[in-house]
């Protein structure tokens, strides 16, 4: 447990050093924050190692008070894995921001370290009100980072903040109703005590609505494209890869532990259908958007559809494969989307255009960035041997085993085709040699290679597929 808290505290210390440090130039700040992320990654791996070795989830009552009173932190194999994943994404995004020209303003470093701390606090917490505050922290940090890209992004940032505040209030109302009935905010105590009463149903409805709005899950996702497309490249990579997954984690926590099992089984199909619709609706919107980063943002909405479907089926069938599929999706999507946004940012900066038509002949003008885009897109579609394929395979297995579940498989088939459509829409344009759009500035190769790095990691995920699945098989509790 101490390694996990170390992994949480390191980025915070880095941020505070950057804030209070004398003569802190952006260059020096980047070194401190990158060091913080690397240390946090190492600590997270240590925590992962200890928790898988011991096999049991460790809990810590902060302040030594008994269960009903203190805030309880919990380190399960899943949260340790998410800690490591967040640290890795922050390291990659930080490296990219450090060397690329289009990455971000100078305050990026403090905010990214703060965001890292807030996310680590979220993965570890097992207290519903504490989760509310971490949600708020993530919302504020994310909005501040969207505002980094200058005045043109303020409107999107303002809308994002307003909706995120409203969502947090709705979530808090739900938590209060739960507290009014069971007199505890601790997830593990709630799990043992929660029953299917009218007030619990109302509370869970409110919590789910708040989290879906905050996590841009299908029906309430309209704020995401403007916010993620407006942000600088490294920031939108962080936002899509990790920030959107926080509310999803809480949604999973609430519906698999706090909610009574038969209520979850009843709501499961609805969530899975919402996921399927998200897959198609998000993909369709991505296919029709004329801007590169808006396309990638809508693809986030679509890919969250996969995760939502896995969650819905986990709720209705309560089988561990769905749990593994859900978290494999989250990790594979995170890495692939980070690389996709970085590549899109590089291409947009080098070719000097936000529109898709500006990508004509990109394989000649910005070959490595286009290659990164294609490789990351391949993982989003789920081409073998990428991480996306691994997750889709584990998701498909239980669905295909009984014929009556095949409509879900049809949904996944549709989702794959739609995501193939909008990824290859870009790739085909890039191979155009007749009307090449010349780059405005000399391409900065270091930025391109760093954009490629997460994509190569997600394709390498297949090699450690067994270990990942073994790790997640513990059911996350």
């Amino acid at each position, binding site marked *: 447990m*101490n390694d996990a*808290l170390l992994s949480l*505290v390191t980025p*915070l*210390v880095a941020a*505070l050093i950057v*804030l*209070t440090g*004398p003569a802190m130039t952006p260059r020096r700040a980047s070194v401190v924050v990158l060091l913080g992320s690397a240390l946090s990654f190492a600590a997270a791996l240590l925590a992962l190692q200890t928790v898988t070795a011991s096999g049991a989830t460790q809990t*810590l009552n*902060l*302040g*030594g*008070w*008994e269960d*009903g*009173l*203190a*805030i309880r*932190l919990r380190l399960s194999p899943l949260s340790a894995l998410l800690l490591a994943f967040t640290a890795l994404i922050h390291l990659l995004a930080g490296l990219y921001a450090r060397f690329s020209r289009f990455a971000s*303003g100078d*305050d990026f470093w*403090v*905010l990214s370290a*703060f965001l890292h*701390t*807030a996310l680590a*606090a979220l993965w570890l917490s097992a207290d519903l*009100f*504490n989760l509310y*505050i*971490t949600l*708020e*922290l993530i919302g*504020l*940090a994310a*909005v*501040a980072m969207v*505002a*980094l890209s*200058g*005045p043109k992004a*303020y409107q999107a940032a303002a809308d994002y903040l307003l909706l995120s505040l409203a969502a947090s209030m709705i979530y808090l109302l739900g938590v209060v109703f739960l507290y*009014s009935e069971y*007199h505890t905010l601790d997830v593990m105590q709630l799990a043992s005590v929660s029953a299917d009463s*009218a*007030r619990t149903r*109302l509370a869970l409805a409110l919590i789910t609505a708040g989290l879906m709005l905050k996590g841009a899950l299908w029906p309430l996702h309209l704020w995401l494209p403007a916010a993620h497309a407006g942000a600088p490249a490294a920031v939108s990579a962080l936002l899509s890869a990790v920030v959107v997954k926080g509310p999803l984690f809480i949604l999973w926590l609430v519906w698999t532990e706090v909610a009574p099992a038969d209520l979850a089984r009843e709501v499961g199909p609805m969530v899975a259908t919402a996921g399927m619709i998200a897959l198609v609706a998000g993909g369709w919107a991505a296919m029709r958007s004329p801007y590169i980063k808006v396309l990638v943002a809508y693809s986030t909405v679509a890919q969250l559809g996969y995760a939502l479907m896995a969650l819905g089926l986990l709720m209705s069938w309560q089988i561990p494969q769905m749990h593994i599929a859900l978290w494999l999706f989250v990790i594979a999507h995170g890495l692939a989307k980070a690389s996709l946004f970085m590549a899109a940012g590089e291409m947009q900066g080098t070719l000097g255009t936000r529109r898709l038509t500006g990508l004509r002949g990109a394989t000649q003008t910005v070959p490595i960035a286009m290659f990164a885009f294609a490789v990351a897109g391949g993982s989003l579609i789920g081409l073998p041997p990428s991480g996306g394929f691994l997750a889709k395979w584990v998701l498909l297995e239980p669905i295909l085993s009984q014929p009556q579940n095949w409509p879900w498989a049809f949904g996944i088939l549709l989702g794959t085709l739609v995501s193939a459509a909008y990824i290859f829409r870009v790739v085909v344009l890039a191979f155009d040699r007749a009307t090449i759009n010349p780059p405005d500035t000399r391409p900065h190769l270091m930025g391109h290679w760093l954009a490629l790095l997460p994509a190569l990691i997600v394709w390498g995920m297949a090699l450690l597929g067994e270990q990942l699945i073994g790790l997640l098989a513990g059911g996350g509790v």
Partner: protein
Amino acid sequence: MTVELLPDLVLCVLLLVVAWSALFASTRRDAMALFVAFGMIVALVWARLGAPDLALAEAAIGAGLTGVLLLRAARKLPVSSARRFDYRRHLGALTFIVVAVSGFAVSIILPSPADITANNIDSPVAAAMSDSGVSHQVTAVLLNFRAWDTFLELLVLLFAITGLRQLFPIEKESLEPARTWQLLVSWTRTLVPLLLLVGGYLLWRGSSGPGGAFQAGALLAAGCVMLRITGMLPPLHWSSFAVRGSVCAGTLLFLCTAVLTHSLGAGWLDYPEAHAGTLILMIETLATLSIAIILTLLVAGERKDLCS
């Protein structure tokens, strides 16, 4: 029965009417003014419901500082034309609320009003008060039992101020210098010491009665904002270490106590029995300092404060 319910009924009707008009007022400035009034009434309602800490906090933070924020925003915004009365919107709002509230009442309250208002379990706080180092329960929860929440709380403030620093990218000519009237200066000169006194009292009083870091911080912030507006306080340059240090003071101290209690003491944030009271007071003082500075910058921070 109804006589005893009368004051609550009056407050509730007042609350709803002011909230309604704050939203659907004809001009934007009326809406802001009414929202400040709404803040005051909420403070009254909370006092009525037996929550003195919260009434203090709401009055100081909700009505006070938000009011200053809104009025400063009103000065920057052009006077918006009055909107014609739109009965369709009011009707829509009315139906939306009536449907929702009656649904809530029917589904949750009517089936079993008793267990909604049942107070069967008394909170575990009373039992653990003895070794919490303070006698006022709310402060004990805030700074000892759920200290991790308060730590993240201070982080929220830190995030907000760091976020605010991004909003001044371009060197714009600053607003015309606020010419201060002598009356305002002398009034500030009498009011600010009083605020300092009350703030300090609230901070000290927090361990045994309603009060505490947040309320004290808000009052001190109000004082600083007055000084800053009247120009008596020089701009709080972000580049100077004093400002940045005090902004991060609360968080830094909290972090050190957490790490120290882990390495030396029994566990993370597990204060040793003997010094719990003094430790809490120390944390509260630095937290008040941080909150005061951050709230001042949030409310009255200009480009020359935050970015130079």
